[in-house]
């Protein structure tokens, strides 16, 4: 399990870094190859960077799918929680569980649709415009990412059933920086606050009451 967590984090970190680097290099290349330096210009002109934009999009699509799953684990997804945060705890717990199961249901359905789609795609000869990689490989992000997200929703729901706690703040601290909140010692991440965009924890757990 730890292994899956690390892999997920490593993957999205790599994807966002790689995408940034690729666009940076592509832009540099575009301007550098315009400079009239003998030999260098010829060498640069021979390198074709037209695929950079497409690759960047695919990297980000993969990052978005797996990052969304990671986001469930860190509790970053925003919702309208003004109403349910005002409810009594037992009732709120029910709404939170409903929300988490709805998340699992949706991502599960999407994953399945995506899997069928990829399966059919794999039997065609479709390739991407610039990179010419088979499209089914690109679209594989939908089933994989969605199923992972579905799993994360179930994981969070399971944890919530036992402890009444939802994920907050975890894994987002950047150690050793001055933005760390003096009193609570937590990194202030605008999307991780106890605001009304996220449901609050409950103190009495669901498991305690319903046998």
């Amino acid at each position, binding site marked *: 399990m730890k292994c899956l967590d690390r892999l997920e984090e490593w993957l*999205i*970190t790599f*994807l*966002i*870094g790689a*995408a*940034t680097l690729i*666009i*940076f290099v592509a*832009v540099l290349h575009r301007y550098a190859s315009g400079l009239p330096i003998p030999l260098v210009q010829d060498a640069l002109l021979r390198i074709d960077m037209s695929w950079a934009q497409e690759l960047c*999009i695919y990297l*980000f*699509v993969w*990052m*978005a*799918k*797996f990052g*969304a799953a*990671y*986001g469930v684990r860190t509790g*970053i*997804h*925003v*919702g*309208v929680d*003004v109403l*349910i*945060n005002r409810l009594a705890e037992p009732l709120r717990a029910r*709404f939170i569980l409903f*929300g*988490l199961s*709805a*998340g699992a249901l*949706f*991502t599960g359905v*999407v994953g399945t*649709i*995506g899997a*069928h*789609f990829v399966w*059919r795609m794999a039997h065609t000869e479709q390739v991407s415009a610039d990179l010419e990689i088979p499209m089914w490989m690109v679209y594989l992000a*939908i089933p994989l990412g969605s199923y992972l997200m579905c799993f994360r929703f179930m994981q969070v729901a399971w944890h919530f059933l036992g402890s009444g706690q939802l994920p907050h703040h975890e894994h*987002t601290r*950047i*150690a*050793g*920086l*001055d*933005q760390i*909140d*003096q009193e609570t010692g937590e990194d*202030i*991440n*605008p*999307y991780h*606050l*106890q*605001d*009304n*965009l996220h449901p609050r924890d409950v103190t009495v757990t669901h498991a305690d009451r319903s046998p």
Partner: protein
Amino acid sequence: MNAAIIFGLLITLMLTGMPISISLGLTVLTYLFTMTTVPIEAVALKLFTGIEKFEIMAIPFFILAGNFLTHGGVARRMIRFATAMVGHWHGGLGLAGVLACALFAAVSGSSPATVVAIGSILLPAMVKAGFNKHFGAGVITTSGALGILIPPSIVMVMYSVSTSTSLGALFMAGVLPGLLLATLLGLTTWYRARQFNFPRQPRASWRTRWISFRESLWGLLLILVVMGGIYAGFFTPTEAAAMSAMYAFFVAVFVYKDLSLRQVPQVLLVSANMSAMLLYIITNAVLFSFLLTSEQIPQTMANWLIGQGLGQAAFLLVVNLLLLLAGNVMEPSSIVLIMAPILFPVAIKLGIDPVHFGILITVNMEVGMCHPPVGLNLYVASSITQMGITELTIAVWPWLLTMLLFLVLVTYWPTLSLWLPQTLGMR
């Protein structure tokens, strides 16, 4: 009728507190499964192609750039520069806060990020200098909102993506209103500070000013990279965003050295986490607007509204009220992604300029960020100052009032937004 079912379903699902992205997606799936015969493969394709646009990729890049700047010591130097320039006037550090927020807003695309970057350094300093805690929190919470009005702006990217409006023109259009709002907030700060006789900083010498300017120059140059690059046609907005991310990385790690290479993966991860959340909302919002379009709801609504004899002025008033109301329950990106595709066709039919409309929406979002129950700036400020939300709400009102007046100005004076992009020939 269909519209009522779709929106009823969406609102019900959202009110249960599930993530907005999930409620959008579930609404679409439920409707498609039960009411129509749209092939499900089309949905799968939309799920992927929804964010398959290079323009959208400006969002993760701007978030990344913002995070490098926030953690890279750029804010600290900008605050020093701002204090050296305006610290000796009434309002001292408060005024410097407004200026620093405006400067930081010109390199970062997000409001809460601006509040974090400026507030976490300046607010403790203000309290130490003898300022009232409420005063400081009020200044920073509202000035931080400049983050999405002064370009670059993530909210504007969202608007541009969902309405196909030129992002370059939107960015340019945000400049003058942004400067005006900064001035108005500064005036409010100055007036309040003079009234209560808050401490002023000693006047800085021109030498100090020059040194602080030179120190913050690396951060300030980023404005040139983004705006200059886009305007001169060197980069597309997305490329400009990627360049600014690389530039911010370079400045944070190699020039200012406030961030070590070891911390870079963590900054990347936090940025990826935030961007993925926004991209996931976009994916599902695209799916949702695909459903709306295939049911021809925006067109029907537009025709109906125009049939009611609604004029420009009345429509803009309705839009403002609607958005302010939405600002009470949702965060800006979701509001723009859900509302813009619905309101935009009407605005166009009524002859409202798409760029002006975008600026109006952005200012509305700013207001929503500064008041409860979901104003993100307020929550950030609350976690910095350890003040309660109710207390902060009272602290914020003089500036919030200024912002509301500014909103009226922006709504009914399109020239303010449109003059610059038109003069530069970007329309």
